[in-house]
């Protein structure tokens, strides 16, 4: 097929909707003006858009792409295709499916074929589709700050590199952890091509200590593959493994597998400073200061060795660990080698090495070693580095001593960055060669040895960008494209290792691309002897407050700061959006006379930061938790100057004081009241009681009477159940819903006014003492009540019940009285206070041609003044039913998966037909743990919850 064909695809019915055309038409039918400027208009903006448009309408989006499952002869307008690919949101490299509609990827979901991730996808991964349409991305390469063509760039850089080689100067490729084996091979080859070239790996948030500790303890400088799925007891030490640590989706999936209440339910004990997502899920949580990590671990180690020697111990955690030896797991997020060595010793003593700690199929994430980076910066400052190629890193922002890095960078004659935007670092370099978005490029990944994953482009590059690998290949003079290079690598290195039955390599390749993931046979993990030396004691920290730095679930290390979806994603614990802050324990705050929102100076002898105070129950006394990843200055309109950069605090985390500035700011929180007030909203029990009585904690049910005959439930009766025991609160569902349903971003001010638009929210409640409360997370969306209070009060029938049990909201009928929202006991309805699309006041996602391309064309973009809410993904229900109808078969349970359900890494959400006795959701409706929130109101929701069971 040639490009002419593509044009004609475009020209067809779709082209008619271009804006200029609409103007003409609107004169003909004036009453339709307002109607036409919605979905179709937005959808088709993409077609008039430069590069994307042509590729978009190709019969196949990109020549070599092989669609997942369905092999279309051609793209049918209005029919989505799914392509398997791999996430590049962090190094976890989750297997993804990209939904491509009319040539544009519009939704990212987890790939259920992936053995590690099993269909889960985190908030960040799902939000990457929005970063594809980020207006701040560079549209062309830059040479000395000016736009240039790739030929010019290649020529100039080629010359520079040649000069350096001739001079015998050092060239360094500074990158984040490379999880792609092919890219690693390419970098090796590159470094060999240029004499004196080397590759340095730098992770802003590194696991350097684990690597070193393992080298010292077991002689393997590697990040082990932690097997949470094999652990019956998990002890975490400041490791937020469900939220941000190493591979949260994989860990969440593995962790929740055995968190279903049963005799062998996994138990989880967490020692931590700030209240993390992981800690909020722990069965026992012990607040400790960061400096107590070592002593705590050491105590545990001693107690366990006492137990081993038969001396006994009074330490509960140690007893528990000893009871579960061989099937327990101790993890620490500390970046102190000594702490990690103690943890290693503990795992070795418990016989976990080779079982829950796999050092034979190691994780290939977080390979950065801090010392190497420090050495490089020293070299740069000494002027020893002649060429520096920055790939996927932003040290001018996230290197703790960024000034030293910048001064070093200025001494590098030739500096090149592959950054996709002019960020803090790339705005200082000589040449910026923008890397393509991962959805635009070929690549592979191996997050854990033997678990391979392929990235395939789902659309042609939107701009004149080029994948970094392609650039490197060009500069080393290799005349192959990266696709060929990748395929060749797989032919030589991967294909021989695969055990599947393939006719040819082509067959192997096609299937691998189609599936997106490939598992190579794994090594049998072996037990290893601990050979390190355990420190005898840890130093006491200087007087003052200690700072505990952490990553937030949305922004992580800050690379996604310009993604408004992630900025507006409420922190799962604090529920604050668009900011970082100094979290203090209630006691400390009241001792210092501080209230929430007070702006304070957090300072020690080295650094000082101005941050608003957030009062965090469960925060360890005398600690301040501050999130990294904020305070970007060069990431784009959404993320610039949001919060404060806390990286400079990394080297000096102790001896802080907090000083009041007298100013006060409002933190944009989506929830401001934190107690359930004794109401039975989240029902919970403890395992021991549950085992005696499966309805423990859920005994009380109202006897519901009705005055009149109920409406018949003949056809389908959709329902949902949410397992509060599985839900970790990771908030992936929020982004999934936002992407699927065109939920607008409203910005910090509007969130402060409590006007966020998320259709699904995660309610978080604390109970117990405020020094160390118990936490519950509860996803809350429209409960689709059978006797819906909202429906009765709408004067214009804009919200009524469907025959299949859904509470329908008809946007185009709504006049906006908000009566329904007032009368909703769950407060899940969202009102369009303003026009959020095409409004300069809300310049986030829907205000530019590019931003609107992410919109789901099957869903209306709601206009100002109408109510909206969760529809239980009615478009997916319709699509599923249509598919079954076209194929002449009944629907199967689980065939329709709503967005939040699909993305949930914990698989806490189940959607299905309540009228079908065998469906999972109908079965869960008869579970002893099943209940409806606010059951006594007799509103008869179809969304129900399963009680939370704590293993304590």
């Amino acid at each position: 097929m040639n490009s002419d064909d593509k044009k004609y695809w475009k020209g067809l019915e779709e082209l008619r909707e271009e804006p200029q055309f609409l103007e003409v038409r609107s004169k003909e039918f004036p009453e339709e003006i307002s109607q036409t400027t919605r979905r179709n208009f937005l959808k088709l903006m993409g077609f008039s858009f430069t590069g994307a448009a042509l590729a978009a309408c190709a019969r196949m989006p990109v020549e070599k792409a092989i669609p997942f499952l369905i092999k279309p002869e051609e793209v049918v307008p209005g029919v989505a295709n799914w392509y398997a690919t791999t996430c590049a949101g962090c190094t976890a490299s989750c297997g993804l499916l990209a939904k491509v509609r009319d040539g544009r990827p519009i939704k990212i979901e987890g790939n259920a074929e992936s053995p590690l991730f099993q269909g889960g996808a985190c908030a960040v991964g799902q939000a990457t589709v929005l970063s594809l349409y980020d207006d701040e991305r560079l549209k062309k390469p830059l040479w000395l700050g000016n736009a240039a063509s790739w030929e010019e760039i290649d020529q100039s850089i080629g010359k520079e590199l040649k000069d350096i080689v001739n001079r015998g100067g050092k060239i360094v490729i500074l990158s984040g952890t490379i999880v792609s084996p092919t890219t690693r091979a390419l970098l090796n080859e590159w470094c060999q091509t240029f004499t004196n070239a080397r590759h340095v790996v730098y992770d802003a948030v590194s696991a350097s200590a684990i690597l070193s500790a393992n080298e010292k303890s077991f002689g393997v400088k590697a990040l082990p593959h932690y097997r949470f799925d094999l652990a019956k007891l998990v002890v975490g030490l400041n490791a937020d493994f469900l939220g941000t640590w190493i591979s949260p989706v994989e860990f969440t999936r593995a962790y929740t597998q055995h968190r279903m209440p049963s005799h062998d339910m996994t138990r989880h004990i967490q020692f931590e400073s700030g209240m993390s997502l992981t800690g909020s899920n722990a069965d026992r949580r012990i607040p400790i200061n960061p400096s107590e990590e070592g002593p705590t671990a050491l105590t545990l180690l001693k107690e366990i060795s006492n137990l081993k020697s038969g001396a006994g111990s009074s330490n509960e955690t140690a007893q528990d660990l000893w009871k579960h030896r061989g099937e327990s797991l101790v993890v620490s997020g500390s970046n102190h080698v000594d702490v990690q060595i103690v943890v290693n010793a503990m795992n070795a003593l418990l016989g976990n090495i080779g079982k829950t700690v796999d050092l034979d199929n190691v994780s290939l994430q977080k390979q950065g070693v801090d010392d190497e980076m420090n050495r490089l910066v020293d070299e740069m400052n000494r002027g020893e580095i002649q060429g520096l190629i920055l790939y996927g890193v932003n040290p001018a922002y996230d290197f703790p001593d960024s000034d030293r890095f910048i001064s070093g960078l200025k001494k590098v004659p030739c500096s090149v960055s592959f950054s996709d935007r002019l960020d803090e670092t790339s705005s200082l370099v000589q040449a910026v060669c923008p890397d393509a978005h991962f959805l635009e490029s070929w690549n592979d990944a191996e997050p854990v040895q033997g678990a391979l994953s392929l990235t395939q482009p789902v659309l042609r590059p939107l701009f004149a960008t080029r994948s970094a690998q392609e650039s490197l290949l060009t500069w080393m003079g290799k005349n192959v494209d990266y696709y060929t290079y990748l395929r060749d690598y797989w032919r030589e290195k991967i294909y021989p290792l695969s055990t599947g039955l393939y006719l040819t390599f082509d067959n192997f390749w096609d299937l691998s691309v189609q599936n997106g993931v490939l598992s190579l046979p794994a090594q049998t993990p072996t037990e290893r002897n601990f050979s390190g030396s355990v420190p005898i004691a840890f130093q006491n920290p200087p007087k003052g407050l200690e700072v505990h730095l952490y990553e937030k679930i949305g922004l992580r290390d800050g690379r996604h700061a310009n993604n408004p979806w992630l900025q507006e994603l409420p922190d799962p614990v604090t529920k604050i959006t668009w900011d970082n802050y100094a979290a203090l324990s209630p006691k400390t705050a009241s001792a210092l006379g501080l209230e929430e929102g007070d702006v304070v100076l957090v300072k020690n002898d080295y650094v000082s930061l101005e941050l608003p105070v957030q009062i965090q129950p469960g925060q360890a006394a005398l600690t301040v938790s501050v999130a990294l990843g904020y305070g970007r200055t060069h990431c784009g309109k959404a993320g610039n100057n949001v919060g404060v950069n806390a990286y400079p605090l990394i080297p000096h985390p102790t001896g802080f004081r907090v000083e009041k500035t007298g100013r006060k700011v409002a933190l944009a929180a989506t929830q401001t009241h934190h107690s359930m007030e004794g109401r039975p909203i989240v029902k919970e029990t403890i395992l021991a009681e549950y085992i005696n009585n499966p309805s423990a904690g859920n005994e009380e049910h109202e006897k519901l009477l009705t005055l009149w005959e109920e409406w018949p439930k003949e056809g389908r009766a959709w329902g949902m159940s949410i397992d509060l025991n599985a839900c970790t609160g990771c908030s992936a569902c929020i982004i999934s819903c936002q992407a699927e349903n065109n939920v607008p971003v409203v910005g910090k001010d509007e969130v402060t006014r409590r006007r966020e638009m998320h259709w699904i929210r995660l309610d978080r409640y604390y109970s117990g003492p405020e020094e160390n409360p118990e936490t519950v997370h509860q996803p809350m969306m429209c409960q689709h009540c059978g006797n819906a209070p909202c429906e009765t009060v709408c004067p214009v029938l804009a919200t009524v019940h469907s025959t299949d049990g859904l509470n329908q909201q008809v946007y185009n009928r709504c006049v906006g009285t908000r009566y329904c929202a007032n009368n909703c006991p769950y407060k899940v309805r969202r009102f369009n206070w303003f026009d959020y699309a095409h409004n300069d006041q809300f310049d986030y996602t829907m205000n530019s041609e590019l931003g609107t391309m992410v919109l789901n064309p099957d869903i209306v973009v709601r206009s100002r003044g109408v109510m909206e809410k969760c529809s239980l993904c009615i478009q997916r229900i319709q699509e599923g039913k249509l598919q079954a109808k076209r194929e002449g078969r009944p629907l199967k349970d689980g065939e329709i998966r709503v967005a939040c359900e699909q993305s949930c890494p914990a698989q806490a959400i189940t959607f299905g037909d309540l009228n079908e006795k065998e469906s999972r959701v109908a079965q869960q409706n008869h579970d002893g743990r099943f209940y409806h929130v606010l059951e006594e109101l007799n509103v008869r929701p179809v969304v129900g919850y399963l009680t939370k069971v704590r293993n304590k």
Partner: protein
Amino acid sequence: MIHPPLIDGRPTVQQVTKDICRPLHARPGLAWIAAFLCALTALLMGVGLVTYEIRTGIGTWGLNKTIGWAFDITNFVFWVGIGHAGTLISAILLLFRQKWRTSINRAAEAMTIFAVLCAAVFPVIHMGRPWLAFWVFPYPNTRGPLWVNFRSPLLWDVFAISTYFTISLVFWYIGMIPDLATFRDRAEKKWQKVVYGFLSVGWNGSNRTWSRYETLCLILAGLATPLVVSVHTIVSMDFATSVIPGWHTTIFPPYFVVGAVFSGFAMVTTLLIVTRKVMNLENYITMRHLEAVAKVILTTGSIVGLAYLTELFTSWYSGSSYEQFAFKNRIIGPYGWTYVIMVTCNVITPQFLWVKKIRTNIVTLFIISIIVNIGMWFERFVIIMTSLHRDYLPSSWAMYRPTFVEVGTLIGTFGLFFTCFLIFARVLPVIAMWEVKPLAAELISPHRESSHG
């Protein structure tokens, strides 16, 4: 029992005509002009703010996902409540043959019309898409036709308010026809002759018409009386039929109706005290009128106080923790101060009216009437806002702070109200001459058989 005369100064029938028709010939006084300019300014500001709100979005108000109504519906209920006194005076007191209503019923009815007008603004502008407000009427359309939801209290409101407005307007106008004829016959300027000629529809004082006219007035009064009760009952059902603790209360219909009468009479007092001063009508609107009104305020104020107590008792007795919390939160929650204002203004202040000196003193009466007006606004605010801001799920609890647009719109409706009222005072008979004249005639020849009013 001998009552003091209802009007002072023993005016002749001719004098009555002359006094009431004075605005036809005289230029407006300075006080009137000043008041009118103030009112107009407020109105124009209101119009500007509403325009801004409709162009930009409801987001210009301080509402949020939890609190969907606050100032808007508070103002609506407040103004509807104000309106009730007018109907009560003209209709219910007519049925009870209370003569003291005669000099004040016209102005009170005008107050009703203008208050309902102000009230009707809010249901329209509080909509997200007010340009589609006509969708609330059941009319044949191209959508199937798609009708409306007759189960929604908001729809009942539409019918109640529009019926109330229409019937009040008809009642007011019909009651004015004889006086408009007087104006017509006294008019000097051309435009006055044309306008009053048109409005008085050829009224010639025929007793055959008078006879029917009396029947008509009685019938309309008979219709208006249950109507006025139904209107505030239906308004209260906006809340009473909901599921929100603090709203879902069966006491609301009588409580709202009494509250409406209470606030309405307070507003009547305010207006009459000003009108009699500005329009020199001290002889017609006398202390006896004001005292009667004050007694109504005292009675209804006490009933309102009883309602507050009953509400508290019911919430305690219900055993529902949500109900109990809602009321606890009203009193000692973050908006407790509004509850304090409400109780102080509505329950404590009117009790001073037991003292005759206070209720027959223009100044104290005026102050109390203003306080009651404020208190009753806060009552609606307390009911609407504090119930919403903390309902079932604590995760959604939120705070509310009005924006300048909301405050300005409230002031704007006062502008609308007073602009209308001041124009009314200038161009229409402020006092029902045909009802006052028999009283004047009686005063002059007291020996005769009394005529009814």
